[in-house]
């Protein structure tokens, strides 16, 4: 892929009336992400807006720089860097310092995409590569959370947002003390479950008050946007169904064996980034399998690994690594699920 739009003009019947190209699909994904981004701004105010802009601008600038260096022409028009920037912001904590967000955007494009040869050649979802990089680089900042709907969010910023580049963000304790409703623990529902065995109610998780990354709490909104993309056939609906379904099944099995220790599946589905990951990140076309059977396997792997990391890993949230592991398996899955050519005899075992 050269980054230019390609319309296939000459082909045998049946003739497709309207060519769907990369730009159209990507543009619709951007449109589907906007409501989620908008909701995160309602939840976290100006800081979330600044965060979204920082990652997006950083991704676009990096993309421009590398496309110029490699002589690929202008690749900004395919919208993929915009998607990476938006998704990246939605997976970061709203209090994340902007300079770190810019580093994440650069890492996403440079390590996640350009290194492999650009759009279509990348093995891993670029936004998740960027997030994994800053998770490893700044483990404290990426687990510092701000409460949703805090008063004064449209008139001021969370103090960590404008940390000087290269400097440590200030502690949030004092600011939280002044601004925040009682009962904010600074821990995500998943962390509270893991360390305190406290299971948040579905109502809390759905209403967006749960502590989380910028775009993770609006499960219903994410599903609605996903439905739109699936209905327009810009997204393979099997992937989110497989991810969510397998995660729910595994969680149900654990819950039935030991209800005191393992929460009900609804908690597993609504907490953390499972919805966002299943709908918008696992479905990235360049990093998911091409065969129908492969897609089911891929989704199931992501769902199961997510629950395994959450239940038995050292981390509280496992969606990011689960999707990256799923991405890494894609070439293998594709190879073993190739459909048999009609009339050809199967390989002998």
């Amino acid at each position: 892929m050269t980054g230019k739009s390609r319309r296939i003009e000459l082909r045998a019947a049946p003739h497709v009336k309207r060519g769907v190209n990369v730009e159209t699909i990507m543009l619709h994904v951007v449109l589907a992400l906007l409501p989620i981004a908008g909701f995160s701004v309602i939840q976290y105010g100006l800081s979330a807006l600044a965060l979204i802009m920082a990652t997006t601008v950083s991704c676009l600038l990096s993309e421009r720089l590398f496309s110029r260096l490699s002589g690929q022409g202008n690749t900004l028009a395919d919208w993929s860097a915009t998607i990476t920037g938006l998704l990246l912001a939605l997976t970061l904590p709203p209090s994340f310092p902007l300079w770190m967000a810019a580093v994440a955007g650069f890492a996403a494009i440079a390590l996640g995409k350009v290194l492999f040869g650009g759009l279509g050649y990348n093995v891993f979802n670029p936004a998740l590569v960027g997030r994994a990089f800053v998770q490893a680089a700044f483990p404290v900042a990426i687990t510092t959370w701000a409460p949703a709907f805090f008063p004064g969010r449209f008139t001021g910023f969370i103090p960590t947002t404008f940390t000087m580049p290269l400097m440590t963000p200030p502690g949030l304790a004092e600011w939280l003390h002044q601004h925040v409703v009682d009962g904010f623990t600074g821990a995500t529902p998943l962390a509270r479950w893991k360390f305190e065995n406290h299971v948040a109610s579905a109502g809390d998780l759905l209403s967006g008050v749960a502590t989380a990354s910028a775009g993770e709490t609006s499960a219903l909104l994410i599903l609605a946007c996903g439905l739109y993309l699936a209905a327009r056939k810009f997204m393979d609906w099997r992937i989110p169904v497989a991810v969510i379904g397998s995660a729910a099944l595994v969680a149900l099995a654990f819950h039935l064996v030991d209800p005191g220790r393992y929460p009900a599946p609804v908690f597993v589905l609504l907490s953390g980034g499972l919805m966002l990951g299943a709908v918008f990140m696992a479905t990235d076309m360049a990093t998911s399998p091409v065969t129908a059977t492969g897609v089911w396997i891929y989704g199931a792997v992501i769902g199961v690994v997510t629950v395994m990391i959450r239940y038995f890993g050292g981390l509280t949230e496992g969606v990011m690594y689960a999707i990256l592991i799923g991405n890494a398996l894609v070439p293998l899955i594709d190879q073993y699920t190739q459909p048999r050519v009609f009339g050809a005899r199967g390989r002998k075992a």
Partner: protein
Amino acid sequence: MTGAAAVNVTSSRAMVATLGLVATLCGVLIVSAYQGTLSAVTANKRIALERAVFKVIPGAASMKEFVATTAGIEPAAGQSSGNGVKFYAAYGPSGELKGIAAEGGATGYADVVRILYAYDPDRQAITGLGVVGMRETPGIGDKILTDQAFLANFAALDVRLDADAKALANPVKVVKHGSKRNPWEIDAISGATVTSKAVGKGINDSAQRLLPRLAPNLDKLRSK
């Protein structure tokens, strides 16, 4: 030799001779390097150890190394004692016993976390913590050295012996952050629970072995 050279095959004797010569030369080199550096190396090791001990026992001016066995305690002499527990008695400038230091270790997140703790026999409490070696994640696990709230656990961590003086009255336990209720509990660092637990386990394992053997012999240590 001449016949061998003609068909270009080296005799075994030449090979053995060459290897023997080289090995001898190398042996001599190694032995002289060992002898030449021995005194500097031991001095370095002693200084490093003293520095670590003096850091966990403030006010100490000198120290002595002992080994505690089931039979009693004796000054450490080389590596002879098999199953004894090594510890260090630190003395102030005028010769009074300042405290006891001993090493402990347990597996943390990445590798064994080796710690050095100070024991105050008068208060029957752990009064200081130092780290001898660890490979924990920088920024997370290494908070055990910098987190003031965590280090406050070791201002006076209760390690009283039980009635028979055979074990600790209350095993040292690491509890979740913010839930320390008793003086023998260690409040874990939130986000670095695994490393905190390794510290607690290291102290507990070592103290359970050392302190019962130490208790009947404390008077021997007081007189320098």
